[in-house]
């Protein structure tokens, strides 16, 4: 399967099943488009008719180009047949019941009252609660016991607002570190916070122990304070920005992400990204479309989606400019490692929700991921008895890039792995559904990210 597109002056050809990426001129672009369904003579005739007045387009040159395309095909870099469908379930089957990552809901409560919160102000449609150290410790023991031969284990402290249960977070990190060596494991901790309770002690601990911190900020003050407010209705921007700046400065280059949400109020979200970069000094940025019901006032409309797609292009071009000027910024979804990216098993099988990745509630219940917490039908089990709803785990195990007939002809399926099960569930009621709007935005992001790679390669010539 081949995908061809033109963006920012580049003609790009993606070969879905080999991972091959080719940057071509307009003549080769047209030749490749005709290659599978036309003879060389037909292609030459069509190209001479279209480009024949150009001195650089001769019959011999066209036949050379056709030969180059044929050579790429024979080398397995173009028009590569899809031989992965039979492997679709093998990685998750081979992994057995291994669990390698937990999202620990240490606090089902929050000190902000954000209008669009998918977790209903941190309570997940249930009672307010804080995870006890004993439950957290059992969760870590459960993770180690079910991690098989995996060495790297990941734990995200999540909520609600995890800093509202800070002592437990610290004790859990301390406990995990105490068993790492004996168990032969490497814990990677991350923290997702709204920033309200950040102080010097939190900064010091995070910068020592957290391999990544995710800091929630929606960008411009008027945008952030429209939704990210406390229970008195006061915006959070002025309180949290100085704390985030202090944390990032002290972090000394360790991973962090400013993580914003854009809604119907700001489909022009690049203004928020550029505000965070230019006015606030943050360089590691992630901005995501809101996840909510279609009738929610915050929901993106079809008109918004067109604006958002244009914004993704604006962002990619601006990032290239910044790179050239020696002031680069990172946008999470534009990070592609073409030579060191994920293997085909990972690309087929996706994030691992419900199998190797689970969320743990303050009471120790297990859910497929943080976005299913509160959906009682999606409870997998608990950290004492393990996964008891094995049918549900099998349903998640069967989710992959080849699970949905709608994805069969999609060029991006080995980039999105079939998409986010939670987004599909919230959009369609089924984890095997297809969240069309999400697909559209995803494809645009990948096109932009690959265009940036093409531009970087052109700059190296």
């Amino acid at each position, binding site marked *: 399967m081949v995908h061809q597109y033109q963006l920012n002056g580049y003609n790009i050809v993606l070969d879905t*099943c*080999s991972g091959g990426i*080719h*940057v*071509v*001129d307009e*003549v080769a672009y047209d030749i490749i488009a005709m290659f599978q369904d036309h003879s060389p003579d037909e292609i030459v005739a069509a190209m001479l008719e279209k480009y024949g007045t150009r001195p650089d387009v001769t019959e011999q040159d066209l036949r050379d*180009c056709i030969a*180059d*395309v044929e050579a*790429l095909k024979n080398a397995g*870099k173009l028009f*590569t047949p899809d031989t*992965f469908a039979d*492997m679709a379930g093998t*990685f998750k089957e081979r992994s057995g019941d291994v669990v*390698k*990552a937990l*999202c620990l809901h240490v606090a089902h409560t929050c000190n902000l009252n954000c209008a669009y919160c998918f977790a209903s102000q941190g309570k997940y449609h249930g009672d307010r609660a804080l995870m006890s150290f004993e439950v957290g410790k059992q969760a870590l023991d459960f993770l180690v016991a079910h991690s098989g031969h*995996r*060495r*790297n284990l990941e734990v995200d402290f*999540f909520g609600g607002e995890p800093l509202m249960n800070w002592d437990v977070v610290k004790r859990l990190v301390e406990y995990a570190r105490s068993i790492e060596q004996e168990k032969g494991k490497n814990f*990677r901790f991350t923290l997702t916070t709204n920033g309200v309770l950040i102080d010097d002690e939190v900064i010091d601990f995070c910068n020592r122990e957290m391999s*990544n911190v*995710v800091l929630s900020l929606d960008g411009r003050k008027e945008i952030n304070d429209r939704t990210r407010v406390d229970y008195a209705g006061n915006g959070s921007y002025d309180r949290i920005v100085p704390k985030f700046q202090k944390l990032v400065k002290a972090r000394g280059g360790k991973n962090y*992400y400013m*993580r914003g949400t854009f809604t119907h109020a700001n489909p022009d979200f690049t203004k928020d990204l550029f505000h965070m970069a230019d006015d606030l000094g943050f360089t590691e940025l992630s901005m*995501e479309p809101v*996840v909510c019901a279609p009738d929610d006032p915050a929901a993106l409309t079809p008109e918004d989606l067109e604006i958002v797609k244009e914004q993704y292009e604006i962002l990619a071009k601006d990032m290239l400019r910044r790179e050239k000027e020696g002031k680069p910024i990172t946008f*999470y*979804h534009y*990070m*592609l*490692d*073409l*030579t*060191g*990216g*994920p*293997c*085909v*098993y*990972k*690309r087929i099988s*996706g*994030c691992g929700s419900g199998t*190797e990745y689970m969320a743990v509630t303050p009471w120790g219940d297990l859910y497929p*991921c943080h*976005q299913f917490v509160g959906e009682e039908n999606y409870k997998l089990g608990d950290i004492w008895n393990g996964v008891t709803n094995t049918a549900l785990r099998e349903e998640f195990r069967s989710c992959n890039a080849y699970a949905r007939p709608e994805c069969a002809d999609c060029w991006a399926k080995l*980039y*999105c*792995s079939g998409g*986010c099960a*939670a987004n599909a569930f919230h959009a369609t009621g089924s984890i095997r559904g297809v969240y069309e709007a*999400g697909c559209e935005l995803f494809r645009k992001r*990948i096109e932009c990210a690959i265009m940036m790679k*093409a531009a970087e*390669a052109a700059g190296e*010539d």
Partner: protein
Amino acid sequence: MERIKTLETRSLCESAKNGGCGECQTSCQSACKTSCGVANQKCENA
């Protein structure tokens, strides 16, 4: 003349032979928490 520039990429077919160790980071833990970014991950062993 050269009309095609092929970027250096990891061969997916090759990765079917040497991939699948499962040590890479769970994508949802990386940054966004709401839309999967498997493509944005790095391989621990590439």
